[in-house]
């Protein structure tokens, strides 16, 4: 992946290597915040923001501090610290600046901390040996891919709210099955950007 062009990385991270459908990152918010389209858009924006910021910060920490001083084993620990603080920061700012969005996202904002997509992408940036520019593009693409999956799913889910889904399947089961079919459909993009 390290040799790919920026555009190829971007497209692949949205479609063929979608964080949700191919990498299984961020499933909790995917199932949790997809009840309505407006919250799905809000969550996507929040993830895009936090994810980009966290990758932008964690990458140099690894490259400039951890690696030169042989402290790679502190990667997980330091990354999660940065991300946790960032999320709290966003939460504080959002509460003041856009209270309506804050109340809509509700308990899911702190959950971004435990959104494994954020930490996962930060770690993948390092594991896949990307350059800083590639890492940023990969991060933005992944966040966009997350948003795309979330918004499509929220649209379907809003509709399912007015359909006759059997009781035992309502909620997470039908959400996972729908995600499965979407993942199947997204497999059609295999080979794109590779």
């Amino acid at each position, binding site marked *: 992946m390290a040799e790919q062009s920026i555009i190829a990385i971007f497209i692949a991270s949205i479609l063929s290597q979608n964080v949700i459908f191919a990498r299984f990152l961020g499933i909790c918010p995917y199932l949790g915040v997809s009840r309505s389209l407006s919250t799905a858009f809000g969550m996507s924006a929040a993830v895009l923001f936090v994810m980009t910021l966290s990758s932008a910060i964690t990458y140099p920490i690894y490259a400039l501090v951890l690696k030169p001083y042989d402290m790679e084993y502190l990667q997980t620990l330091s990354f999660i610290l940065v991300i946790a603080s960032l999320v709290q920061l966003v939460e504080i700012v959002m509460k003041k600046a856009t209270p309506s969005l804050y109340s809509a996202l509700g308990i899911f904002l702190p959950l971004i901390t435990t959104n494994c997509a954020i930490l996962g992408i930060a770690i993948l940036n390092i594991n896949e040996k990307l350059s800083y520019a590639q890492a940023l593009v990969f991060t933005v693409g992944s966040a966009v891919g997350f948003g795309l999956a979330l918004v499509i799913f929220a649209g379907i889910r809003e509709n399912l*709210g*007015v*359909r*006759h889904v059997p009781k035992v399947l309502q909620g997470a089961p039908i959400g996972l099955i729908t995600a499965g079919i979407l993942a199947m459909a997204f497999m059609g993009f295999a080979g794109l950007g590779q």
Partner: protein
Amino acid sequence: MSSATMGFPKGGVHPPEEKELSLGAELVTVTPPKKVIVPVTQHLGRPSAVVVNRGDEVVVGQVLAEATGPVSAAVHSPVSGKVLKIADGAVIGADRVPVIEIMNNGEDTGLDAFVQKTVSWKDKSSFLDWIRDAGVVGLGGATFPTHIKLMPPKDATVHTLIINGCECEPYLTADDTLMQWKPAEVLAGCCIMAGVLGISRILIGIEDNKPRAIEAMTVAAREGTYASFFDGDVPSFDVQVHALKTRYPQGAEKQLIDALIHRKVGAGKLPFTAGVVVQNSGTAYAAFEAVAARKPLIDRVMTVTGKGVEKPGNFLVRIGTPISEVVNAAGGAKENLKAIIAGGPMMGKSVKTLELPVVKGTSGVLLLTGEEIEEYRERECIRCGRCVEACPVNLVPCDVAAFAEFRQWDRAGKAMECVECGCCQYVCPANRYLVLYNRLAKYHWRRLQK
């Protein structure tokens, strides 16, 4: 003068017309019954106030209930006799509203006061008062007080009076009959209303499945026979009769405006915004009688039809006559009756009994058999989109219904724009109760807004 194939652009349906059932027979005048039931309020707007007491003797045309405030209309006694009681009773569409029961003494005292005279155009300033005093309301079914429609707001410029002779509902032929029977009087009524509005352009829209009415009105307009009802300096009128391509709901106010002058009047807006006033042809006749004979609205032409009645036809009926009396005049109901509908089949209401009075807005009664009406049970929506195509006001009826079915009232606000014409439900292959869902959504949406 007529130009065929005019029509409104979007949506609509063309159900079987079934008009020939009731069209052949002559107009029959129904003898006023022994007892009439006159609902106190027979219009859209504020309820009227009762001005008679139990036991009072009343004459034909005497005011029983007065208008309260501007958007309201008076109710007059259709017979002479004694007020039996003032109580709650059942009418079409409601179980308990205030009604006045009058025992008819059969003498029609006071009826001879309403003699038709030539109308002097010098009295023009009084026309509006006379129409209001006669309690004239829209006879197409909406029963909006006519004089209100003839008083456009100060800032509106009205240039055209549109007369609705479409009668787009299948089965019904009351307006058709009236236009064939009294074309000159209907036209004179149009001129009177145009005079009140101070305009000269009158467009009359009639669907092309009523060739005889079109012919009669065209002749009356061309030969100017209506002028004989007037004397004095009568202004000249530009009367045009237009044949419209038969398509339901052509007679809906906004669709008719679109068909005739190609202007769209948006949701929640009145025809004034397009510079027009729309009146029904039956209303025009009532306005003529109100001005020429000073006769209040105490009778109307209505259709009784369907395969469930022996002799379908059109009837001149006093207001307050029980529907059963009119049905008797039509030879009585048949054994295999399956449904009774007050109004047309597209927008009329199911009623449980024939013992309900005819009111100002009763344009017809259908007695249908199993041949004509089925027991429709709904299925799941298959999202075929036919309702979207058929909707004349550009809604997505299947979505509103889905929101209503799952009680998501906050998402069903678009229902408020629905005119309940029934096109969507007519075409639905899954027989969804789309109109009822819309009504339900409206009810709950209004409650949410409070």
